[in-house]
């Protein structure tokens, strides 16, 4: 095999945006100034994530995270942090429900028009639906985020 490989066979799940966010997460930092935080843990594979949230008025001002896990889970955490910024808690919960559906089925669900744009940004992760054991990699940071919003210390596992 040579470096000139096209890698086409590897790309359907690991699109460039996932590799990029997995390698260089923009939001992969612990927030010193935060309002709530929670951990997520996937005992099946050892992935761990902690999410910190700083509110701005009634919406999410900023999200930071520390993740120890695969490229999918790190990229998902980073895309999540990017996408939920400026959203209300209610809208964030609705976005998670839509994202989880997409991760499970591969299809962008029918949802509120206000979610169309963020769901499109998260769409590169839809490929995990082909790997049922990897769906949790993509949803783990979201579970931690929702737990933080709920005031729980740890995400309950699915």
């Amino acid at each position, binding site marked *: 095999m040579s470096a000139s490989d096209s*890698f086409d*066979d*590897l790309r359907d799940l690991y699109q460039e945006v996932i*590799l990029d966010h997995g390698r260089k997460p923009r939001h992969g930092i612990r927030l010193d100034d935060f309002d709530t935080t929670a951990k997520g843990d996937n005992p099946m*594979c*050892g992935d761990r994530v902690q999410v910190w949230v700083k509110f701005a008025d009634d919406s999410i001002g900023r999200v930071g995270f520390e993740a120890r896990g*695969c*490229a999918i889970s790190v990229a998902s955490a980073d895309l999540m942090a990017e996408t939920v910024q400026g959203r209300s808690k209610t809208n964030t919960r609705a976005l998670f429900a839509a994202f989880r559906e997409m991760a499970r089925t591969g299809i962008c669900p029918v949802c509120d028009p206000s979610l169309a744009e963020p769901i499109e940004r998260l769409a590169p992760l839809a490929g995990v639906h082909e790997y049922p054991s*990897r769906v949790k990699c993509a949803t783990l940071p979201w579970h931690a985020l929702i737990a933080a919003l709920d005031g729980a210390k740890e995400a309950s596992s699915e």
Partner: protein
Amino acid sequence: MNVMTNPVAFDVVRIREDFPILKQTIRGKPLVFLDSAASAQKPRIVIDAMVHAMETQYANIHRGLHWMSERTTEAYEATRDAAAALMNANDRSEIVFTGNSTGAINLLAHSYGRGVLKPGQAVVISGMEHHSNIVPWQMLRDAHGIELRIAPVTDAGELDMDAFEALLEDGKVGLVAITHMSNVLGTITPAERIVKIAHAHGAKVMFDGSQAIVHRKIDVQALGCDFYVWTGHKLYGPTGIGVLWGRKELLERMPPFMGGGDMISSVTYETSTWAAVPHKFEAGTPAILEGIGLKAAIDYVQTIGYDAMAAHEASLTEHALARLATVDGVRVLGQAQDRGGVISFTLDKAHSHDVATLLDRQGIAVRAGHHCAEPLMRRFDLDSTARASFGVYTTHDEIDALVDGIIRVREFFQ
């Protein structure tokens, strides 16, 4: 093909013909199955034995007085003879059938642990155990006041024998329960030395042979151990059947684990008496078809022969380690002198789950995760590794496909 250079006459091409599943393609690519340590594929004769039993003679065993039950009982009990011969057991009644290795260890932890060991005594396990040889002893510790001691593992992934011996010096250890081959590191533990040291300090020894029995001829009398457990599905047999071998005098001292039919001598409402070993430990209708399939699997490996299998796997392992050593960023876990065909590794650029998924895209099946050995992972400061493991049907070409696949994954993550 490299197999032609194999030092022992071993026709892997012909052996592969015995395994129908290997003809499959995965994602349009030939299946490269390197996850035999989790569960091995099944040869045609195992599949046929189970189907034949169902089509011609199936009935419940040990109690029917009709032709079908007699034939099925004979077939099932023939597996006990085959298992006894496989391990060089002294007596067929020393073979207790269980659901798997986990079932066998739980039986031992419960019956020997509560029935023979006394509170205040200790059990020694090692730092490279599968969870199935950790958790039952923790449960015994908490229920029965047994101390649990852990014999450490060296950086090379071998048992620290000095530290092991030190754990036995106060004479409190009643049982040593240690893997005969690590499912993560591939390390084969020095069984004879372990037995010698344990016996010198008055402790009995159980080996978890789930991995070892696939790669090495097991002779329990030569090893000198007291208990030996293994499972059928890793030895090319069906799932749902495992073996606890124990010295007869020890099995006779142990109370039953589960109560029910088949394990009694007589039952009244006031009291029940137990059947003789091994039936005392075999309550309920057993895995009859799986037992019959296991006989075919034992016959199959005996026909190939352990010397040939071990030489083939040693050749594969040597080839894999040599090739992996040339790949930048690959770290192989453990460098034991004595090892079997199981190789755990990490890649610097990618998490082991990404490695496994991206190898799967190339038709290559490996395992990734903690391999049910979390404490061992922590010992090496890891959360997970990818693991390639080999069987009788593994070829040198498949090792090459694995290594080329890893190189591609690394380039992909550059």
